[in-house]
């Protein structure tokens, strides 16, 4: 069964190629069938492989499939090869499965769009790239998937390319993530030069063997990889692209910015955990970046009034949690949260898509309201999603994973109280903004008429994801709930076990209670806030900049402004100044000098015989003087 591994990425890739070649000759139905079908089939194969992997684990709990040698020169011989272990199984299954649901949803969501084929082309390519990323056996192939994902995100965000604004957002996403990618590729240079391979497993083994913990080269390597991860996962300081990335169609947001692409950074760090273990400083940085980002994103989310931007910031914040987990060596916890997040965030986005579609493309939450009855499916999906996002205890999958991270942030050997407090604060804020969203959108007065209702292809994914958002967390119950954790056991075959402080407060029921309470309090606060201040809300809607802080948060804390002034404007200025090429004056100057010399000499050639004689005479005199006086 495992030999079919290559089929998993190959199917969506094939879908892409078929769509590309046949393009115009396909009916919409055929396009949808190929586009969604290829990913669906891929999901089926992935699940079969996963089952096979779990039921009869390959030797060493990992399976490697070599397709061919990419190239071989100068000691560098990366292969086109896939590597399957517990972690990639999780990623593979989640990507294909959630990906398929989103494709299915898209067949309806996009059905009136003129770029229907193009859309599925990109989506298929995206899924294929992401699969390559998580299945890659070496870092170069991983980088291929990594960049492929980045490119597809550009294409998809800029999908409605007639609006330059969308294209701008797509470009921004690609360019900002590419800044991080540069760090990643430099990391590759370093790793290859030091360890003479790019194949991940030997690389990690080599690093563990040759490098001392905390050595400069380990820190450098880890830091460079972190740079890549930060870019792709929209963590500070490379987070600015994510909110803008909402310019793409909503399924795109669901696929790219919830379930898959942004988690690539998490995957990368987890995959190269050996390096990060060798570089504690960098790992601490990961934790801090995660914590700061999650808080930053929470505050920003509070101020947004575009439904998708709220979700975008929430994504950023949840990835922050994952980073926090990675930072304290909670590898498995991060992966767990990745999975649950994939479910509930996709759910939220798809539900938001229903709302937006129903309202004729309206994004502003203050123009929504009262949709509870008009769009019940979306409403319930949204409630479940928001609950899961807020980690409401027991009944949401988000609770289990987030609780685990909060526990780990304190209870792990590398954890500390500050991180824990940050995580708790984030949890509170998350509940507030999540339910603020729910209340504003689904309660109160209806502002915009509903024009469209979802049909089954949009509803089915919502239902499936809703179920998963509820039950998805039961694969890893906390200790005080009985310690049922097959997911952890499974992941432990691929990831190191988190070292915990024995008897830490974090793992007690009290701590869990605290966590739960905070989430509930957040929901309550949101309710109070919104019920109490209807007037304030109206004011806010009328005047979008009520006070400075809100504006500040709304605009992402001025990062865009900063980057604009530090990077974009100087480069643009330079480009404007240098447009005619700065070097050119040197050469045109030479030409000009020649021309002046010609003018002067030509003037001497004035046709006067006596002048000619004179010149000869002077020349002679000079020569004679030189010869005689020398």
């Amino acid at each position, binding site marked *: 069964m495992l030999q079919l591994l290559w089929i998993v990425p190959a199917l969506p890739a094939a879908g892409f190629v078929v769509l590309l070649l046949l393009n115009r000759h396909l009916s919409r139905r055929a396009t949808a069938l190929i586009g969604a079908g290829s990913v669906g089939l891929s999901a089926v194969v992935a699940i079969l492989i996963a089952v096979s992997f779990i039921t009869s684990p390959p030797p060493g709990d990992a399976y490697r499939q070599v397709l061919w040698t990419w190239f071989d020169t100068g000691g560098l011989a990366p292969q086109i090869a896939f590597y399957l272990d517990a972690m990639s199984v999780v990623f593979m299954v989640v990507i294909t499965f959630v990906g398929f649901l989103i494709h299915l949803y898209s067949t309806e969501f996009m059905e009136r769009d003129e770029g229907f084929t193009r859309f599925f082309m990109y989506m298929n390519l995206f899924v294929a790239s992401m699969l390559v990323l998580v299945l890659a056996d070496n870092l170069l192939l991983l980088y291929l998937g990594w960049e492929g994902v980045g490119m597809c995100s550009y294409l998809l965000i800029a999908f409605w390319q007639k609006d330059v604004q969308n294209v701008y957002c797509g470009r921004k996403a690609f360019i900002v993530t590419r800044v991080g990618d540069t760090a990643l590729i430099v990391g590759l240079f370093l790793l290859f030069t030091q360890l003479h391979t790019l194949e991940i497993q030997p690389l990690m083994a080599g690093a563990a063997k040759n490098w001392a913990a905390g050595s400069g080269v380990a820190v450098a390597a880890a830091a460079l990889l972190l740079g890549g991860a930060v870019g792709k996962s929209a963590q500070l300081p490379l987070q600015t692209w994510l909110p803008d990335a909402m310019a793409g169609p909503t399924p795109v947001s669901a696929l790219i910015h919830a379930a898959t692409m942004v988690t690539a950074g998490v995957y990368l760090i987890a995959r190269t955990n050996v390096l990060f273990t060798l570089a504690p400083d960098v790992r601490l940085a990961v934790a801090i970046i995660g914590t700061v980002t999650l808080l930053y994103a929470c505050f920003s989310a509070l101020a947004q009034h575009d439904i998708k931007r709220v979700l975008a910031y929430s994504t950023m914040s949840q990835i922050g949690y994952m980073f926090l987990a990675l930072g304290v060596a909670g590898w498995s916890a991060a992966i767990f949260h990745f999975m649950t997040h994939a479910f509930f965030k996709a759910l939220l986005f798809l539900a938001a898509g229903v709302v937006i579609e129903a309202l004729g493309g309206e994004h502003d939450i203050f123009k929504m309201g009262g949709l509870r009855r008009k769009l019940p499916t979306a409403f319930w999906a949204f409630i479940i999603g928001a609950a899961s996002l807020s980690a409401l205890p027991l009944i949401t999958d988000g609770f289990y994973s987030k609780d685990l991270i909060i526990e780990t942030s304190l209870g792990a050997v590398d954890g500390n109280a500050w991180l824990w407090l940050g995580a708790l604060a984030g949890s509170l804020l998350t509940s507030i903004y999540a339910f603020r969203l729910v209340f504003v959108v689904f309660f109160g007065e209806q502002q915009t008429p509903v024009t469209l209702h979802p049909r089954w292809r949009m509803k089915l994914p919502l239902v499936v994801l809703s179920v998963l958002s509820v039950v998805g967390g039961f694969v890893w119950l906390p200790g005080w709930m009985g310690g049922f954790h097959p997911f952890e056991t499974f992941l432990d075959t691929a990831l190191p076990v988190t070292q915990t402080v024995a008897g830490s407060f974090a793992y007690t029921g009290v701590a869990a209670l605290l966590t739960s309470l905070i989430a509930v309090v957040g929901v309550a606060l949101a309710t109070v806030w919104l019920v109490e201040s209807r007037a304030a809300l109206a004011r806010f809607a009328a005047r979008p900049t009520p006070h400075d802080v809100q504006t500040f948060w709304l605009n992402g804390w001025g990062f865009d402004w900063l980057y604009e002034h530090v990077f974009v404007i100087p480069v643009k200025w330079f480009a404007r100044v240098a447009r005619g090429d700065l070097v050119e004056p040197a050469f045109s100057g030479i030409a000009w000098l020649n021309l002046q010399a010609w003018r002067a000499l*030509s003037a001497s*050639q*004035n*046709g*006067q*015989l*006596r002048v000619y*004689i*004179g010149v000869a*005479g002077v020349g002679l005199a000079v020569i004679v003087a030189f010869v005689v006086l020398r």
Partner: protein
Amino acid sequence: MAAVSLDHGLILAAILFVIGFVGLLTRRNLIVALACIEIMLNAAGLAFVVAGARWGSADGQVMFLFVLAMAAAEVAVGLALAIRFRQSLGRLDVDDADEMKG
């Protein structure tokens, strides 16, 4: 008749030569210019004669004859040209001949 020393002869020749050259530079009349060239050529001839005297060989005088003959040929052509010059430009001023330049 006392012998004229080589140096004196050469200095005389040089003075003549310079006179011719300066005349060439300063006078604009074509005929005068031709005359100045004659002076220069004859200065050279004089120098040859003086030199021949110094080495006691006939070579110098032979060369003088060549110079003389050549000067005659040159003047012959020169005068013919002067006539054409006058016909086409109306004057004999060499400065008028500056149609071509640049």
